[in-house]
């Protein structure tokens, strides 16, 4: 019995291979969307990683000379012999046309698995090491390096951050004139315990956390969170598509189900067979989808070295790698999505009377009741979102709000569209127009899942696009403000600070003290900074709110500025007194401080030194004309002996962060294409399925004198009308989404709020793309209708009971 029934079920696919194809492809595309987004997210993350890597000189811990200067290379051998797993680094600048490039010498065999080390090994160790050696740099940087005749051959390595070049340590030492010297030693993360202590080996070195890039890293945390939210959204889009696809796979075979049941196949057996069939297809489609997603991501992303090896999860830094967890998650999505989607259909089949109308049309014409139930569910979800948004706290509430809002909007879509179409129908005067609107309304239930997927795809794109653009605009503007000084220097000790000041004062426009101590406010750690009264701050500081004479009051010692985090955390605003050690001060302004996890207070340096006479006076901002900044930095290193790590070049930092955002833009662009393609495919399959079901409705109109070509044109118009309506609704939903991401989730997660910027031009592009997708999706069904044999239409009359 089982075999006979199964062969009957499967024979449907054999006779209609195209339906099978759309079924598997629909599932595969939904999975592809998910795994593609995962891959793209990972790529975005790794490019952040690379940027911070380059700024901070790598993550983890390093061993450095206590005085910040170079170390004797012999220490490396001593540490290795003592059991330390370390890798040597030498660093410096090489001057080339168009500015300096930071040169980092590494030992490819002991270096941690970074992009540079990977590229070095790929270059061929012997070429990389043996004189004259090779330089590795991002293509644009490489081009600049090649203009200098004194440098070794340069190899393009797209996975390396711009503005930086890697070489073998020996090669770099020679180029930098640092023979026998090291800048620092990277401590490899998995150290064997019970090592000889550093002090025993040399008293002049110490172990410390690497990286001056922590701020950037924290900022990127926020970004990662938003990308994760994006991943979840694409999951929702995928689910809708799976739901539609599976629903179709059932509806198409309803007559067969009915016949099987009349002939004596028990309902339970039928459902068991369908479940087994679905699982096999879901697994197959899942595997195809994951591979497809990976390849699409690789094809859409520039600079990503995606290899087939990556499909097996071989971890190669700087390459797109398909990790086992993605396989698991992707298959989970396919199977889970299929199961949830099939659940309702199977339930219907189990409960359906055997003789329920076998015509799939019944499905396409969902009852008014179902529509209202959907509306009620949407309103329930909106209530959940509202409660989560107002009463809830924390990230979970934020995400709950996000999810509930989106699904509610998707559920409302068919209702709103139905209302709009009804209005159009009543407004129409011509009989043909009336028929067109009425017919469109009738088709709505069959298309609504695909349109919901389109809505979610568009809203997600608008939301994430707005989020990323807002991030970029705010962040780069903020960097301009916060890092207004051209150079930031940190002295190792007071003696060096004295030398620095003596050197800098005649050579710069201003040297601004940035002194700070760590304090507690309201029981939580906070930073107390002293900043000089200088136009640099008055003109640039990113104040969110302030009293009128804010800078004068900071300068005269009666006022303090606090960051947004402190303001939100403890509820201080301008005019309030903030308790500080040594006496409260009036808050005269609140400023944005993206990425800082700590509360921060700014006061005048005089007040700071009066209250903390011992405050370390080591940090300074240096104002100098930008074209002289490089030379001054060189001078500081050469003449004052300032360690490379103690110098932050504002231009370099900004270049890195902008590069990061630009990569992310490419990423979101790729995602737009991907999600729209998937939504377009969903529309296509729905239209194709509807096409056969709709013949009974089209045949009478055709018989009354409308040509097939005319009908086909109307089909096309219909798809475009529905897509346009969906787009119009998607814009507010997308903006709402962006608002939740920026103003709710980000605040919950990090304590600061990002202002939202709106980019209508992006919507126009997206709108055009979505119309192209909808038009392309309806083109084929329309063409088929235009070419349909009249006998097919006549059959409708013959078969009617």
């Amino acid at each position, binding site marked *: *019995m089982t075999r*006979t*029934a199964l*062969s*009957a079920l499967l*024979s*449907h696919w*054999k*006779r*209609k291979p195209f339906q099978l194809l759309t079924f598997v492809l629909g599932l595969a595309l939904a999975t592809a969307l998910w795994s593609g987004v995962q891959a793209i997210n990972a790529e975005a993350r790794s490019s952040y990683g690379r940027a911070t890597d380059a700024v901070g000189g790598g993550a983890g811990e390093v061993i450095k000379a206590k005085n910040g200067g170079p170390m004797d290379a012999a220490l490396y051998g001593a540490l290795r012999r003592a059991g330390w797993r370390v890798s040597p680094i030498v660093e410096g600048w090489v001057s080339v046309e168009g500015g300096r490039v930071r040169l980092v010498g590494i030992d490819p065999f002991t270096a941690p698995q970074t992009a540079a080390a990977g590229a070095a090994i790929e270059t061929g160790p012997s070429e990389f090491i043996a004189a004259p050696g090779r330089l590795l740099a991002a293509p644009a940087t490489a081009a600049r390096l090649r203009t200098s005749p004194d440098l070794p051959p340069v190899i393009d390595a797209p996975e390396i951050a711009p503005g930086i070049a890697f070489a073998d340590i020996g090669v770099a030492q020679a180029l930098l004139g640092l023979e026998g010297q090291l800048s620092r030693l990277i401590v490899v993360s998995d150290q064997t315990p019970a090592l000889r202590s550093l002090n025993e080996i040399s008293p002049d070195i110490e172990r410390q956390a690497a990286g001056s890039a922590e701020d950037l890293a924290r900022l990127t945390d926020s970004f990662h969170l938003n990308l994760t939210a994006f991943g979840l959204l694409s999951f929702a889009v995928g689910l809708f598509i799976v739901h539609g696809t599976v629903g179709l796979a059932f509806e198409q075979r309803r*007559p*067969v189900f*009915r*016949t*099987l*049941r*009349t*002939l*004596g*196949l*028990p*309902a*339970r*057996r039928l459902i068991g067979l369908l479940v087994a069939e679905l699982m096999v297809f879901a697994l197959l489609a899942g595997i195809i989808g994951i591979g497809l997603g990976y390849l699409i991501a690789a094809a859409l992303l520039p600079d990503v070295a995606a290899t087939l090896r990556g499909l097996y999860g071989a971890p190669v830094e700087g390459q797109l790698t398909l990790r086992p967890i993605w396989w698991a998650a992707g298959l989970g999505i396919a199977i889970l999505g299929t199961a949830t989607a099939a659940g309702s259909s199977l339930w219907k089949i189990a409960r359906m*009377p*055997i*003789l329920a109308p076998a015509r799939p049309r019944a499905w396409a014409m969902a009852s008014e009741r179902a529509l209202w139930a959907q509306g009620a569910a949407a309103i329930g979800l909106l209530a959940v979102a509202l409660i989560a948004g107002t009463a809830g706290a924390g990230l979970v509430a934020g995400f709950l709000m996000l999810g509930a809002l989106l699904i509610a909007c998707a559920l409302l879509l068919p209702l709103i569209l139905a209302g709009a179409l009804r209005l159009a129908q009543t407004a129409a005067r011509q009989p043909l127009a009336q028929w067109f609107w009425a017919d469109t309304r009738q088709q709505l239930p069959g298309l609504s899942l695909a349109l919901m997927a389109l809505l979610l795809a568009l809203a997600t794109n608008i939301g994430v696009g707005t989020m990323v653009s807002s991030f970029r605009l705010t962040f780069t503007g903020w960097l301009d403000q916060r890092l207004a000084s051209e150079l930031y220097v940190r002295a190792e000790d007071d003696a060096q600070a004295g030398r620095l000041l003596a050197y800098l004062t005649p050579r710069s426009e201003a040297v601004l003290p940035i002194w700070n101590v760590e304090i507690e406010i309201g029981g939580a750690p906070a930073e107390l900074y002293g900043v000089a009264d200088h136009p640099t701050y008055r003109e640039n500081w990113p104040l969110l709110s302030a009293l009128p004479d804010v800078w004068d009051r900071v300068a005269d010692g009666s006022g303090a500025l606090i960051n947004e985090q402190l303001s939100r955390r403890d509820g201080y605003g301008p005019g309030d007194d903030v308790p500080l050690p040594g006496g409260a001060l009036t808050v005269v302004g609140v400023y944005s401080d993206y990425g800082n996890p700590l509360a921060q207070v700014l006061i005048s340096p005089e007040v700071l030194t009066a209250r903390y006479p011992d405050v370390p006076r080591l940090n300074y901002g240096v104002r100098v004309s930008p074209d002289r900044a490089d030379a001054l930095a060189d001078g500081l290193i050469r003449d004052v002996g300032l360690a490379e790590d103690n110098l932050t070049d504002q231009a370099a930092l900004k270049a890195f962060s902008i590069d990061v955002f630009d990569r992310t833009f490419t990423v979101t662009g790729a995602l737009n294409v991907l999600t729209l393609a998937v939504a377009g495919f969903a529309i296509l399959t729905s239209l194709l399925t509807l096409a056969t079901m709709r013949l009974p409705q089209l045949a009478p109109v055709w018989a009354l004198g409308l040509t097939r070509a005319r009908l086909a044109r109307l089909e096309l118009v219909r798809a475009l009308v529905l897509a346009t309506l969906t787009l119009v609704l998607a814009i507010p939903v997308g903006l709402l989404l962006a608002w939740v991401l920026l103003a709710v989730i980000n605040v919950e997660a990090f304590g600061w709020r990002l202002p939202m910027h709106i980019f209508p031009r992006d919507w126009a592009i997206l709108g055009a793309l979505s119309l192209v997708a909808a038009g392309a999706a309806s083109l084929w069904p329309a063409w088929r209708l235009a070419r349909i044999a009249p006998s097919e239409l006549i059959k409708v009359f013959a078969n009617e*009971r």
Partner: protein
Amino acid sequence: MLLELDDIHKSYPGDAGPAPVLRGVSLSLEAGQTLALTGESGSGKSTLLHMAAGLEVPDRGRVLIGGTDIASLGDLGRAEMRRTRLSVIFQQFNLIPSLDVAANLAFQARLAGREDHAWQTQVTRRLGLDEHTAKYPEQLSGGQQQRVAIGRALAVRPDLVLADEPTGNLDEALGDEVITLMLDLVAETGASLLMVTHSDRLAGRLGSRLHLSRGQIAA
């Protein structure tokens, strides 16, 4: 007694409360007997037939097949009953569009696990379908399709054939021809037949007849 319907009531939800369709119908059919059920359109003939097949459940009353109340069988038992003891022939042919004629003919017998190749070949030939076994239902004419449905019903050698206007879609001459084939095959297998029809002429060809009027058996 092979089939016994005892005081069957059934109503469907209507605009103004439940609308009764069957109001206390009883009938019985012995093994080998053939019975025609006539009545005007909407009188509840199909509904009654569906009850007999266990496809629908009466609001009140009992359906006994071979002495067993099918309500006591449960879904699985009723499905098995349909598979092995009954065959239903509908007005629309109810074939599986994705299987060819040969597979459709053998389908119920296979489902019931009692395929008899020799008998099936004979049925196929008797119904004049030899040349069409490799075709798919959509490539057949209406009369051919109905012959496949009849073949499928009889290939399983059922105890009871339930036919709902099996020739309703065919012209008179063709209808007569198909009914003749069906009656011959039914007689050969010794099955009982309950056939719904509009046609007095066709009804006259069966062993006995009942008339359904406003949900009740007319005298």
